[in-house]
Each structure stands twice: as C-alpha cells, then as structure tokens.
C-alpha cells in the first residue's frame, strides 16, 4: 500500500487515501483536499510534445512514451513518476483491442477501427479524425441496410485479456481510485458509422433508419460494457464513457429531439452499467450541453466530464447551482485559452475559482477540460496540479 495520500513538501495536511477522497467527493461529501485527475478519466491525458517538455521541466529522465487512448502520436499516459510528483488521485483501467478486427493500419496516418470506420490525421502528432463510415454514402437507406455491415463482437475476449489482473494489482498495491474507460456511446458511434451530416439528417428525415442504427450500436456497447464489468465491476470506483452532445454555442440536438431519439439509448446503456457495478458512471461530453443536462442526469449519469466552462451556458457557478445536487463535475480547467495561453498565475486562479464554484460541498474532481495540448507550457501544468494541493 502507498498508504495515506502524500503531499511531498507542500500543500495542506491530508488525512484521506486517494481513493477515499475521490469516492467521497463523488458522493457529494467534503474532502481533505479536492481530488484531481491526470490521465485517469476520459480526455485527461497529455500531448507527447507537452509531456516531453514537462518531464524536462520536472528534472525527470526522458521516458519511453506510453500510447494514450486516442492512438499513436497524439496523447500519452503520464508515468507513475509524474503522477506521484503531482499526487494525482486516479488511475485508469483500459480495454484492449478485440481479437476479431482489431485496429488495422492503412498507412502511418490512417487506420480502420473494428466498426469499419476509417480514421485519418494530417500529421503524426495531430488528432485522428473519423473520415468515413461503412453506412456513409447510402441514399435514403432502408432499415435492412444495418445488416449489410460487419458489427463488432461484444464478448470478444481480446478486449478484457489481462484486465482483471491489471486492476487487481492496482487495487492491491496502491490506494488510488480506479476508473474503467469504455468506448464511446450511441450518438458518437452512430455518427461515425453513418457520417455526421447523414445521421443528423436521418434523425429528422429517415427516423426508422437512424433508430435502427442506434439500436444496434446500443446493443453492441451494452455487450462490450457487460464483458468488461463482469471482469472488474467489483474493483473499480468509476466507469466512464464519452458521447459528445454539444458544440461551442449549443447542444447538437434540441431537447425534444434528444428525448425522442437519443435519451432512450443513453438510459439503456447507463442502466446496464449500474446493473453491473456500484461504481459511479462518468459521462464525457464536450461543448455546451446545459440544455440536455437535466435529461442526461435522468438517464442515471452520476458525473459529468469535462465541463467545458467557456462554451455557451456552461458557466460553472450556474451549473453547480442548477445541477450540483444531482451530478458531480470532473474537469473544468480551461484548455482553449487558460492552459495554453495564460500565465501560471492565471492557471492557479482558474483552479482556485473552480474549486470555489464547482467544488463547494464536494462533487468535483479537478482536471483539464480536454487532453493537455502540445503548446501548453510545463509551468502551467505544474501550476494546475500544485494549486490543487495548496488550495486544499
């Protein structure tokens, strides 16, 4: 056991284990200090350029980089040395590639995933973007078209090979909170299969087909979640999935359309998770989602990530006042302006402000709003995490 949380040479006195701190915060209780995440939950990892600069700044030896959740070259998992330096409270548990149709590289910059979706990036360290799905290009398709493609095998043993051993080891040898990261959910996956514009048009113009695609996607992800949680549902403290529902200025869909076409799938998926584990369910959605947040909470989501505070309607104080009793917040440190372009003092102020508004009475885990981007100065990364410990 690592034992009680350490605060090497700085910060306020601590009295809780890392896990206890996270679990209590997600139970809307006050903690000795606000918990923080770096690389444990969804989209909290770091770009390799920023990571290499951070290692040098911290006086740590260069490391062999561990590929992050987004694929080679884009984000890395921070090493245990770095997490110890910052006293990060969370550690991730990740699924692996399936045995049937694992990620298949086309060339250095593109690949197919197990859904048959083609991904590309513009240069090695740029983010992968889904550029073509197997249902894209069909004009006014009939429902039967969903049977024309190969679907992932939910209980493929490759996904969970070694998972229980890895998580048990974390549980035995450390006191960190553990988050199991699952694949994306219904809306994002359906968009990738059908194409972004095509799916949004189908939701209004070809409802039966949109519904058929989404129903099948939900079947598959419920199956994947079941496969994973049967292995480690008793060992993890959080289970996370992503489904982006917002753009910078508003939600993708109106509340009415969300309720009609997406909410039943989110409710089924989140219900499946709760039936298999006592862990808190963490949903990641970028953008402005205030319009949908009440319905998302209705589906059984316990924690919302990343709280994109500079999107329209996402002012943290207002969100906390309106939804803070019913949902916890995970994220909130701005990655569009403050982390890349602010000073360390600006970052420290941002962290203190978020602890003040989102953290009041518990219910908050500090993390960057998205993966820390390439140009974020190491001084700002240090300011973010050190301020958490100094603020209590």
């Amino acid at each position: 056991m690592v034992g009680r949380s350490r605060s090497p040479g700085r910060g306020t006195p601590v009295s809780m284990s890392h896990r206890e701190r996270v679990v209590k915060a997600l139970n809307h209780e006050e903690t000795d200090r606000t918990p923080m995440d770096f690389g444990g939950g969804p989209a909290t990892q770091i770009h390799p350029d920023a990571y290499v600069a951070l290692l040098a700044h911290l006086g740590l030896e260069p490391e062999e980089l561990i590929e992050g959740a987004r694929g080679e070259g884009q984000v890395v998992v921070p090493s245990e040395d770095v997490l110890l330096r910052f006293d990060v409270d969370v550690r991730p548990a990740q699924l692996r590639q399936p045995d049937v149709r694992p990620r298949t590289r086309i060339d250095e910059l593109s690949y197919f995933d197990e859904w048959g979706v083609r991904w590309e990036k513009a240069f090695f360290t740029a983010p992968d973007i889904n550029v073509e799905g197997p249902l894209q290009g069909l004009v006014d398709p009939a429902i039967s078209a969903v049977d024309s493609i190969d679907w992932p095998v939910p209980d493929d043993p490759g996904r969970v090979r070694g998972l229980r051993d890895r998580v048990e080891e974390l549980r035995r040898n450390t006191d960190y909170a553990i988050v199991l990261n699952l694949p994306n959910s219904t809306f994002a996956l359906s968009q990738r299969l059908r194409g972004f514009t095509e799916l949004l048009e189908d939701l209004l113009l070809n409802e039966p087909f949109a519904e058929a695609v989404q129903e099948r996607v939900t079947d598959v992800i419920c199956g994947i979640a079941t496969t994973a949680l049967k292995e480690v549902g008793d060992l993890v403290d959080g289970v996370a999935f992503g489904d982006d529902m917002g753009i910078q200025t508003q939600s993708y869909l109106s509340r009415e359309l969300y309720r009609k076409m997406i909410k039943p799938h989110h409710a089924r998926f989140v219900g499946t998770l709760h039936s298999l584990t006592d862990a808190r369910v963490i949903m990641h959605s970028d953008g402005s989602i205030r319009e949908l947040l009440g319905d998302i909470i209705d589906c059984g989501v316990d924690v919302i990530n990343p709280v994109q505070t500079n999107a329209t309607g996402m002012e943290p104080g207002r969100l906390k006042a309106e939804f803070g009793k019913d949902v916890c917040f995970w994220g909130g440190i701005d990655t569009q302006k403050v982390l890349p372009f602010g000073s360390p003092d600006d970052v420290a102020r941002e962290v203190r402000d978020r602890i003040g508004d989102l953290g009041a009475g518990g219910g908050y885990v500090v993390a960057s709003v998205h993966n820390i981007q390439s140009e974020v100065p190491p001084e700002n990364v240090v300011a973010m995490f050190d301020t958490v410990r100094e603020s209590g």
Partner: protein
Amino acid sequence: MDFNDLAQMVISGDNKGAESWTQEALDSGVEPAAIIDSGLIPGMEEVGRRFKSAEYHMPEVLISARAMKASLALVRPLVTDSGIEPKGRVAIGTVRGDLHDIGKNLVGMMLEGAGYEVNDLGANVAPEAFVDAVENGGADLICLSALLTTTMPMMNSTIEALTQAEVRGRVGVMIGGAPVNQAYADQVGADGYAPDSATAVEVADALMKKRAAG
C-alpha cells in the same frame, strides 16, 4: 409565385418541395436571380437567425441547407450563364494540419445561402491552395477555420503566404473556430473574425462593403 413559399420550404427543410417549386418557377419564366434573392436568401437568413438564438440546432440547419442546395442546383447554372455576378466569391477551408470540418461546412452553407459563390477547399488545406484560390479563382474573401490551438498558427502562415504571393491586398481574410477570437484575428492581421456561422455572414457582408468602398 410567392417567394415566401420557397423561403418557408427552406426554413422547414422541405427538400423536394423546394426543388419542385424552383422548377415550376423557372418553367413559368421567373428570373433565376430573383429566386436566390427573394426566396433562398431570406429563407437562409431566417435559418441563421434561428440557429443563432438556439431555436434551431444542427439537424434543422442541415436539412434547411439541403433544401436550399436542391433549389440552387437548378438556379445556379442559369445565373452563371446570364453573366450575373454573385454577391462575392469566397474560398473557405480548414487550415493545414487540421481535419475538423463541421464548423467550416456550416459557415460555407450559410455564406452560400446568403448569395455568395463558395469554393470549399476542404480540410487540411495548404497555404498555397488559398493563394491559388485568389490568384486563379478570383476569390474576394478567404475564410480560414481551425479547431485546434495547435493548428491556429497555420492561419498566420496562410496570411503570410498571401502576402508573399503579393495577393493579400486583393482579398479579405476572415477567421473562425473554437479557440480563435478577435484578439487573435488582430494579432495575425485578419480582416474579420466570426464566433459562429450566422455572424460569419454579417462579417462577410461588412468586408465586401468595405472592399466596394475601396
């Protein structure tokens, strides 16, 4: 024929209705340019207004743009043949290194719906392609999009390439994208910044007016 009917078909995303209304109008001798000016533009203006006020979301906007395009596909060749100049020529693209194209596509649709001729250069567009769109494509306006803080500096590089090629004075440059703001537009020497697709039309109109005033 009542142009308001066409505008309403655009607003409600009635693709087939807009197409058959347009065909009927052309058959009965309605001026092609009038279909754009009195039906499509007011329709898309209302769509932009509703999107800006969050009354419309992306699905509604996308089906409206589809209806607008169905009508425009019939009208555009006739307008071009008659030698009538569009309101302005726009070359739009996401800068090199960035494959995000949703915001860029929305801005392109709104500009097209406002009467601009839109040359969509796609995503991951090299600075030289924008230069070419000015030199050989006759673009009046260049619209640059970036979603990533990492690719924002490519806006600066693209503007520098326009300057190097000595075409910067011939073209207005607008920028947009989540991490971009007015201060950044000022810093890289862009002529305009728009936070959303409806505002992009207003900024484009203002730039065209400024250019006309010379």
